């Protein structure tokens, strides 16, 4: 015990197992090579959806998993991102590459404005308040004539593929790479966050706010920081999704279903764990897409039935998510001494 105390030191970021590093490198290379292995566009679409939802769920994971605040209206930031790129492209012709950052900034500002009054609330009050905020955004955008009110915005199509306008009509492959890069960047940043001082402080706020307060951690400030980070992760996915489908309306991008699915993916995969959202998305999105193909089409909401059922089953039987099946020492990547 004494030995351990003497040798204990701040854990360097790269003090990880060589095997796992090479495994991750291999997977990343595989992901980059994947479109060239003869996947048809359905599978590319599936992969794009997995990347997108993994990042969206990761965004929710930052606020709910790390800092313990349950937001039921996270779709609002998705919608802000989607509207930022589309609006600036339609009105002023600004390239989506620039307005993605507008979206990030706007949703960061929105998160600060929402967060300052609301993060003083906790538990159920915060959850209900965010549910109301999410719906309020939908109501406001449905009636805001500047952004097309209920009919939404149609992004004018370019004549061919264009990297500048971020529109590709012939193949899904460029979209695949764009989403993949955003996915990798986000997961890398959140992984660093989870191991940083900030990450530890957020978890302290989640686990015991009073103890955290007694250690001079300003609880509400850290909650706001987590909320802003989370909102900023969500916004670019909205922007990219808008570029992917090229038509947005309030019912689609502010839909409560978005808030539901990020929660579902995270809880399914494992809340509070960096890799939970990825696992959850990789399992849930194929189920959802396939159930839509084989069981949908009659107006029935079979995929939603599955969502609800899975969510209840996970809550009852595996509250820590599917990632809790994976042995802990692999996940934490600590050197076993």
């Amino acid at each position, binding site marked *: 015990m004494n030995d351990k105390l003497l040798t204990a030191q701040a854990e360097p970021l790269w003090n990880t197992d060589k095997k796992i590093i090479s495994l991750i490198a291999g997977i990343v290379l595989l992901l980059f090579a994947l479109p060239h292995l003869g996947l048809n566009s359905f599978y590319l679409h599936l992969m794009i959806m997995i990347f997108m939802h993994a990042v969206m769920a990761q965004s929710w994971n930052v606020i709910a998993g790390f800092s313990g605040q349950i937001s039921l209206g996270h779709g609002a930031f998705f919608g802000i991102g989607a509207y930022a790129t589309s609006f600036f492209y339609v009105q002023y012709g600004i390239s989506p590459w620039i307005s993605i950052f507008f979206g990030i900034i706007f949703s960061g500002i929105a998160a600060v404005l929402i967060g300052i009054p609301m993060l003083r609330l906790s538990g*159920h*009050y915060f959850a209900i308040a965010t*549910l109301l905020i999410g719906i309020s955004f939908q109501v406001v955008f449905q009636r805001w004539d500047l952004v097309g009110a209920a009919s939404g915005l149609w992004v004018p199509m370019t004549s061919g593929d264009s990297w500048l306008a971020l529109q590709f009509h012939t193949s899904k492959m460029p979209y695949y790479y764009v989403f993949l890069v955003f996915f990798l960047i986000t997961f890398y940043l959140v992984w660093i966050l989870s191991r940083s001082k900030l990450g530890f402080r957020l978890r302290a706020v989640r686990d015991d706010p009073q103890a955290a307060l007694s250690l001079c951690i300003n609880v509400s400030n850290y909650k706001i920081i987590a909320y802003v980070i989370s909102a900023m992760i969500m916004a670019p996915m909205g922007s990219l999704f808008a570029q992917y489908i090229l038509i947005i309306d309030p019912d689609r991008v502010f839909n409560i279903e978005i808030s539901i699915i990020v929660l579902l993916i995270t809880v399914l995969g494992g809340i509070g764990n960096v890799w939970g959202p990825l696992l959850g998305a990789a399992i849930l999105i194929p189920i959802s897409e396939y159930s839509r193909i084989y069981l949908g089409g009659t*107006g029935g909401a079979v995929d*939603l039935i599955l*969502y*609800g059922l*899975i969510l209840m089953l996970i*809550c*009852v039987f595996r509250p820590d998510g599917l990632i809790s099946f994976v042995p802990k020492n692999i996940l934490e990547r600590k050197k076993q001494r």
Partner: protein
Amino acid sequence: MTSEIILQAIVTGLMMGLIYALIAAGLSLIFGLMDIVNFAHGEHLMLSMFSSFWLWSLFGIDPIFSIPITILLMAICGILTHYFLIRYILKAKMLIQICATFGLSIFIRSIAQLLWTPDFRNVENPLLEGRLEIGSVFIGQPQLIASLVCLVAFIALYLFVTKTETGLALQATAQDRHAAEILGIPSNKMFAIGWAIGLGCVGIAGGMMANYFFIFTDVGINFALFAFVAVALGGFGSIIGCLYAGIIIGLVESLGGLLIDPSFKLLYVFAIYLLVVIYKPQGLFGRY
């Protein structure tokens, strides 16, 4: 903008408010008892409206007479919810509890969509129809009867909880589950009773609203949101708070719609919620 129109809005708001109050009372009872917010409350309301509708459409029972059956069905539904889901998450983290009832709400709503399609339905030619004219104010008869029934049910619920032995046992369990168990009050049974009564209230509100409201699978969402707001406004776990909060919400909704802009009705109610929870987090009558 004459005073008659404002008076009309106040009356409409009051009538709606009493219905919100009863729905919220069911939610508040369950929350006070076991610290679980039933996020599927709106879906339970939808089920009760559908139960009323199907009893009318299949057996020809008018919604006003099928109320007892609807209450019974909803009480059974409450006990089943407790038995199959809530029982297992009593000790879980709050996050898991929220997710579980949220999952239940998605599940019920989409099953209903699959079975009954998202069509709008309504009960044709119910016994309660027409309107009264008092002075210059028009009052829809079904709305009036619905709100009165809700008020009576609310008073009955209040008396039950504060005066009867079972009600006192419920309160004891709400205050301290373990102490109550030591005194021989089985908390599991109390929870089941709480769910049965909570959803029974929803059954009354839903059954009465089936007389005049459109019945569709998403009908519960707005009512549930207002019920959440009413519960937070009145103070989580306070039943009498729900009555005042429900009436406040009804009035804000109808007066705000009249005086400012009806398309933002929801937002006024949300604004009230935010103001109250920020400045008085325990609500108007909260215990916590």
